[in-house]
């Protein structure tokens, strides 16, 4: 938590004697919070303001300024894509779960992972939190050396592809619609290369489930991954 971060937004009553600390919080302009969790906890309690339309907030862990529109927090000055979460992958992990990145704020999301390495050539697999089946994949493949074609498919499986990894790099790049909505989820894997071969492609991923998911698991098909950053972006609804 930074030096200017707060954990509450005060409301004062008539006749109340204010301290220097009270004035420091009140005069700090847009309140600064470590995370959206501390932001949400700072309103509505005893001695705190009631959250209402027009409230601003700065979130340290995503370096974003937001305003409350009366129903949800919205990014200020957002472009089409808004960074929702950034997760640094640790050392030699078999999977990474990114929690609480999907919400009612966005319908569609982009997930990127780069800057890491894998312990061996692998596919990078994904699974939405709380949904372990009903995944479908179709990836047309072209052999970039011979121009031969083929396809990968998963028919009602437990996972979808998000990318690939090697001892040199990790790449994942997918778009997905409706992960939070109680609707079927559809998307695409945008870059795929089968490491150790000349097979490359991009393709279709889906999850035929109405279950709402708030996050996802990313895992190598073999071995572990180390380092790099998983970023989740939301596509603006308007």
């Amino acid at each position, binding site marked *: 938590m930074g030096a200017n971060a707060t954990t509450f937004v005060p409301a004062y009553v008539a006749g109340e004697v204010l301290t220097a600390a009270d004035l420091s919080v009140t005069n700090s302009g847009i309140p600064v919070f470590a995370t959206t969790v501390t932001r949400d906890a700072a309103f509505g309690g005893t001695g705190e303001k009631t959250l209402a339309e027009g409230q601003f907030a700065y979130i340290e862990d995503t370096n974003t300024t937001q305003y409350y529109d009366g129903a949800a927090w919205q990014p200020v000055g957002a472009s089409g894509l808004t960074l929702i979460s950034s*997760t*640094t*992958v*640790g*050392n*030699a*992990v*078999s*999977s*990474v*779960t*990114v*929690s609480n990145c999907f919400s009612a704020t966005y319908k569609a999301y982009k997930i990127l992972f780069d800057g890491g390495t894998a312990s061996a050539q692998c*596919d990078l*697999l994904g*699974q939405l939190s709380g949904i*372990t089946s009903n*995944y479908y*994949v179709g990836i047309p*493949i072209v052999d970039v050396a*011979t*121009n*031969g*074609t*083929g*396809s*990968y*498919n*998963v028919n009602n*499986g*437990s*996972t979808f*592809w998000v990318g690939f990894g090697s001892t040199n790099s990790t790449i994942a790049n997918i778009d997905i619609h409706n992960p939070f909505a109680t609707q079927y989820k559809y998307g695409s894997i945008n870059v795929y290369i*089968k490491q150790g071969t000349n097979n490359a492609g991009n393709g279709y991923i889906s999850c035929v489930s109405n279950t709402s998911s708030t996050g996802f*698991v990313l*895992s190598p*098909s*073999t071995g*572990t991954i180390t380092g790099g950053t998983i970023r989740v972006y939301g596509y603006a609804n308007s």
Partner: protein
Amino acid sequence: MNTLTVQIDNEQRPATDDEVSNLEQMRQDASKAVAEFEARQKTRAAVIAKLGLTADEAAALLG
């Protein structure tokens, strides 16, 4: 003994039995898809060989 390490957001810990089972299922499904792809490619290569097609002819015919 389970030796997998999982990361939940920014914290690492040993995987639970359920998590290990789930990861193994994901990996099995992915391996199955790759194995089926490779089997189809072998069948395709065998058919091309049986027809006596060159690589260019096979690419022109089959994409």
